[in-house]
C-alpha cells in the first residue's frame, strides 16, 4: 500500500463555520499522554501470529474427505465433490473465497498499517485536518460495484443451471430420462417414493423406502420435495446444495452422482426436537445393481419359523402394521392420489388439526367416541435389511439395536413419534413396548428378513 493521496480539503460547512482549523494545527492539544503505544505494536503482532496459528489449526480441521464437506482438498481445485451441481456451487464459492481473501488482505492491511504507522508520539502536533476526497470516494464506490455486478451476473447464470429443467436436458442429451424421486419430510425421518424407478422401462413398479435412497450412477435425479408436517430442508452436501421441504408446496431440485458410493445427507432446517437426528443416506449404485434392487423390491421372502412368529407380532400384538408397511410399496394411485400411505398422511393431517382444537373440545370428542383414527405415515420397512442405519441415520442397523429400538425408542431417539403415538407404548408406565423379550426377538428377526430376497451383494448388512 502506497500513501493514499488524501487532499487537504474542507467541506463547505466547515469552511463556513470554523475559521480554518489548520490555523491551530500547531497547537499541541494532547491532554492524553501515551507511553504504551510502542509496546502495543509488538503485542498486536504477537496477537496476529496467534490468530494466524488458530486459522491454520482450523484449516487443518477442514477435510474434503469428511462425510458432509462441501469443500475440495484445496481451494484451487474442484475435487471431492460428487457431481456437477455441487461442482458449480463449489466453483462459485472458491472464486468468492479468493476475492474475499484479496479484499481482506488489502483492507485489513490498510487498517493495520494506518493503526501502526500513524500512532501518536508524545509532542506530536495536530495532524492535517482533512475532510474527504471526492475522487477517492467515487473510486471506492464504483470499483466494488463493478466487481459485485460481475459476480452477480455469473451467480444468476449458475442459478438457472440449478433448475430441474437442466437435468432433463442433460439426460435427454444421452437418450435417457432423469429418475424422479419424491422425498417427503416427516418429523424426524425421510420417506422416498419412486413412482417410476426405471424410466423408459415397460415393467415399472412403485417403490417406497425410508431414510436411505438408492439411485443409479451418472443419471440425473430430480427430487420432488414434500412435507406433511413442518418445514424441513433436503441437503446432500457432496451432491447438491439444499432445498427446503415446505408443507403446502412441492419444491424440486436435481443432482447427478458421478461415482458409486454412499453419500450423507441431513435435514438442514430446524424442525423440532430431533432435528439433529433427521439424517439420510444416498446409495449411488451401478445401473445393474440399481435395477436388481428395484426388481427384488417387495418380492416375498421365505420366512423361518422364528420369522413367522415375528410376523404374527408385527400384525398382532405389536400392531406395527397400523403405521408400517412390509413386503410392499405404500401404493398410491398417482391419478387419484389414494393409497395406504396417502390415507395415513391424511389421518395424520386430520389428527394434527384435531390436536389444535381446544382441550375441552378434544375431551368431548373422546367422550363421544369422535376422536380421529390414529394411523400415521411411518417408515416403509420393505427393504430394511438393505439399510445401514436405524432411526434416520442414528445408530447402526443390527439385530441388537433393532430390538433395543422397538423395546424403548426413547432411549435411542428423543421425541420420536413411535413411542408418542403407537398403542404398545401407552400401556406401560415406563413407556416401553408392551411385548415380551421373546416377541421382541422374533419381531426383530422378521423385520431383518425384509429385503433378504434382494441381491445379496447390494443388501444384507453384517447382522
Amino acid at each position, binding site marked *: 500500500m502506497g500513501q493514499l493521496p488524501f487532499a487537504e480539503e474542507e467541506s463547505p460547512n466547515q469552511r463556513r463555520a470554523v475559521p480554518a482549523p489548520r490555523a*491551530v494545527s500547531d497547537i499541541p492539544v494532547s491532554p492524553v499522554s501515551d507511553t504504551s503505544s510502542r509496546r502495543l505494536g509488538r503485542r498486536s503482532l504477537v*496477537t496476529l501470529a496467534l490468530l494466524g496459528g488458530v486459522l491454520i489449526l482450523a484449516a487443518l480441521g477442514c477435510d474434503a474427505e469428511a462425510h458432509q464437506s462441501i469443500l475440495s482438498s484445496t481451494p484451487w481445485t474442484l475435487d471431492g465433490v460428487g457431481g456437477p451441481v455441487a461442482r458449480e456451487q463449489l466453483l462459485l464459492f472458491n472464486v468468492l473465497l479468493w476475492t474475499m481473501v484479496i479484499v481482506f488482505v488489502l483492507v485489513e492491511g490498510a487498517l493495520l498499517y494506518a493503526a501502526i504507522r500513524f500512532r501518536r508520539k508524545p509532542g506530536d502536533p495536530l495532524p492535517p485536518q482533512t475532510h474527504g476526497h471526492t475522487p477517492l470516494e467515487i473510486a471506492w464506490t464504483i470499483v466494488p460495484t463493478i466487481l459485485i455486478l460481475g459476480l452477480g451476473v455469473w451467480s444468476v447464470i449458475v442459478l438457472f443451471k440449478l433448475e430441474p429443467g437442466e437435468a432433463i436436458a442433460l439426460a435427454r442429451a444421452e437418450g435417457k430420462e432423469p429418475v424422479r424421486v419424491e422425498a417427503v419430510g416427516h418429523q424426524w425421518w425421510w420417506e422416498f417414493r419412486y413412482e417410476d424407478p426405471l424410466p423408459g422401462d415397460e415393467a415399472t413398479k412403485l417403490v417406497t423406502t425410508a431414510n436411505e435412497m438408492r439411485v443409479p450412477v451418472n443419471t440425473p435425479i430430480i427430487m420432488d420435495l414434500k412435507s406433511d408436517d413442518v418445514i424441513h430442508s433436503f441437503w446432500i452436501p457432496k451432491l447438491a446444495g439444499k432445498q427446503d421441504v415446505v408443507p403446502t408446496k412441492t419444491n424440486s431440485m436435481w443432482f447427478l452422482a458421478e461415482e458409486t458410493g454412499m453419500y450423507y445427507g441431513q435435514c438442514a*432446517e430446524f424442525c*423440532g426436537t430431533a432435528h439433529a437426528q433427521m439424517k439420510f443416506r444416498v446409495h449411488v449404485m451401478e445401473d445393474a445393481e440399481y435395477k436388481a434392487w428395484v426388481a427384488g423390491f417387495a418380492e416375498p421372502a421365505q420366512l423361518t419359523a422364528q420369522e413367522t412368529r415375528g410376523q404374527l407380532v408385527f400384525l398382532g400384538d405389536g400392531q406395527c402394521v397400523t403405521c408400517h408397511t412390509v413386503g410392499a410399496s405404500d401404493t398410491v394411485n398417482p391419478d387419484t392420489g389414494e393409497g395406504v400411505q396417502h390415507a395415513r398422511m391424511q389421518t395424520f393431517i386430520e389428527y394434527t388439526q384435531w390436536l*389444535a382444537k381446544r382441550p375441552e373440545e378434544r375431551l368431548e370428542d373422546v367422550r363421544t367416541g369422535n376422536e380421529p383414527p390414529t394411523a400415521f405415515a411411518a417408515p416403509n420397512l420393505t427393504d430394511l435389511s438393505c439399510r445401514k442405519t436405524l432411526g434416520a441415520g442414528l445408530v447402526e442397523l443390527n439385530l441388537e439395536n433393532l430390538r433395543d429400538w422397538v423395546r424403548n425408542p426413547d432411549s435411542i431417539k428423543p421425541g420420536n413419534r413411535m413411542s408418542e403415538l403407537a398403542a404398545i407404548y401407552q400401556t406401560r408406565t415406563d413407556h416401553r413396548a408392551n411385548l415380551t423379550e421373546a416377541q421382541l426377538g422374533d419381531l426383530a428377526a422378521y423385520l431383518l428378513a425384509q429385503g433378504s430376497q434382494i441381491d445379496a451383494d447390494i443388501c444384507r448388512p453384517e447382522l
Partner: protein
Amino acid sequence: MVTITGVIPRPSTYTGLWSWLTTVDHKRIGALYGISAFFFFIVGGIEAGIMRLQLITSDNSLVSADWFNAMFTMHGTTMIFMVIMPFGATFFNFLIPLMIGARDVAFPRLNAFSYWTFLFGALLMHAGFLIGQVPDAGWFSYANLTAAPFSVGKGLDFWALSLQVLGVASLAAGFNFVVTIINMRAPGMSLMRMPVFVWMTLVTSILLVLAFPIITVALIELTADRQFGANFFNTAAGGDPILWQHLFWLFGHPEVYILILPAMGVVSEIIPTFSRKPLFGYPVIVFSGIVIAIMSWAVWSHHMFTVGLGPIANSVFTITTMLIAVPTGVKIFNWIGTMWKGSIDLRTPMLMAIGFVSLFIVGGLSGVSHAVSPSDFQQQDTYYIVAHIHYVLFGGAIFGIFAGIYYWYPKITGKMYNELLGKIHFWLMFIGMNLTFFPMHYAGLNGMPRRIYTYAEGFGWEGMNLLATIGYFVIVISLLIFIHNFFRSIKKGEEAGHDPWDAPTLEWSISSPPPVYNFAEVPVVRGQDAYWITKREAAARGETVPAEPHVDPTTIHLPSPSYWPLITSFGVVWIAGGLLIDVGWDYIRFPISFVGGIITILGVIGWSLEPPAEEHHEAAGGHH
C-alpha cells in the same frame, strides 16, 4: 377521574428507589437500560455457554434435545432484543440530548414508558423459565413449527406475547428519538452538522418505527393462531407457512441494521477523536448509512433462498444483497481514511473501534459469499452462517458497544477506567472472539448444520467445536476483567475531568457526570465538531476551555418525575401476561388480561391529566 388524578401530586423525590422508579431523566433512563442490557447479556452468555459445552465433542449428552433447542432460541432472542437493542437505547438515551445540546428527549415520560415496558417484556419472556415453559422454536420461530400441534405448552406463547410487549417499547422509543433529533437540536446544529452518532440514531429510529409494525402483525397472527384458533399458519387448514417467513424477514433484515447502525455511529465518533482528525468523508458516511437503511428493505428474501421462491426472485435478491455491501464498504474505507495520516492514540475505546472495523470486514465479506444464492444453497443453515452473524453482531455490534462504554465511561461516571485492564479486556475478547467463531466457518463448510443439539463422530467436526468452546471461555475471562474494571473504577478510579479525550462533540463541554439539567446555557453550534471549534479557537487565543460551570438546578425548568409511565407499562405487560395464565379453566385468562387493559387505560388517563410540573418549578420555570 379528573379529580382523582388532578389531586395526585407528581412525585418530587430525586433520591432513593422512588426517584429511579419515577425518573424521566434521560441519563438515568439510559443507565437503567445499560444495567438491564448487561444483565441480559450475562443471561444470554450463560445460554451460549450451555450450548458450547454440549457441543464440545461428538455424542455429548450434557443437556437434552429440547433443552438445547430452548437454549439457542433464548440465546438469539435475548441477545438481539434484550441486549444489543437496549444497549443501543442506552447510548441513545444518555447521549442524544447531550450531543444535540438539549435538556432532555422530546417526550420524557414516554421515554420512561419505553424503558419500563422493555424491562417488563424481557422479564415476562424469562418468566417462562420459572414454570418450565421455555420457547424452543428458534429466535425466528418459523411457522408452522409454532402451530399448536407441533409446539405444545406455553413456550411459544411467552415468546410471541413478550416480543409484542418489547415491540411496544421499541416503537415508543423510536418515535421519541425521531422527534427529539428533528426538533430539539441546539441553534446552529443543522442536519449536516450533527455528529454521525446522532445521524445513525435518527436512521435507526426511523427503521424501528417502520420495521416493528411488520413483526407486530406477524405476532398478532401467531397469537391469533395459538390463542384463538385462527389458521394463518396452520397448513392443515390451508394456512401458509411462507407468509410468516416473508413478514419475519421483512422486519428481520432492517432489524439487522437496527442492531449495527448504532455501533457504526459509535465508531464514527471514536475514530476521529483518537486520530485527532475530523471524520473522513462525513457526508458520504451519513449518506451510506441512509442508503443502507433504504436498501435493507429490498434484501429480506436472501434469508429465504432455499425456500423455493424460484430463480427469478432469487436472482433479484442476490443482486440487491450483494449491492448492499457497497455502502457498507464505503463506510469502512472512510474510517480507514480518517485514521490515515492521523495522530492515533490506541486507547481502549480506539482498540475496540479498530476491532469493530477489522471484525466487521470479515463478517461483511462472508456475507457477500452467501448473498450469492447458488453458493448460499450450500451455506444456508450451517455453522458458516452462525460464524457470519457472530462476526457481524459480536465482532460488530458488541465491539462497538464496548467501544462506546469505554469511550463515554468517564462522561457517565466522572471517573477514568483502568487503561491496562481495558486493553487486556480488548485483547482477550478479540482473541476469544476469533477462536470461538472463526472455526465455525470451517465447521459449516464441512457440513455441520445449525441448531443441532448433538453430532455423531466421523463427520470431522470435533476439533472446530472444541476450539469454539475454548474461545467461549476466553471471552468469559475477558468479560470478568471488564466487570471488575467497571465497578472498581467507579469506586477508585481517578477523576476523569470533563473532556479527557479532547473530543469534538458537545457532551464533553459539560462536567462529568453531567448535571441533571445538562447545559446551563443552550450551546450555539457553529459547525461540525462543534466543541473542537470552541476549543481550538480558545487555544489560538492561548486559553483553555473549562467545563461549563454548575448552576442551581431549581432555577432551570426540567420535566418532573411521574408515576404514570411505570403504571401504564405495568398494564401493558399485564395484558400479555394475563393471556398466559393457566389455571384449569381456559377462559379465565381473558378477564385477567382485560384487567391489564383497564390498568393501561387508567395509566394513560392519569398521564394525560397530570399537572405539568411541581409548583416551585412552575414558579421558577420559564426558560427552556
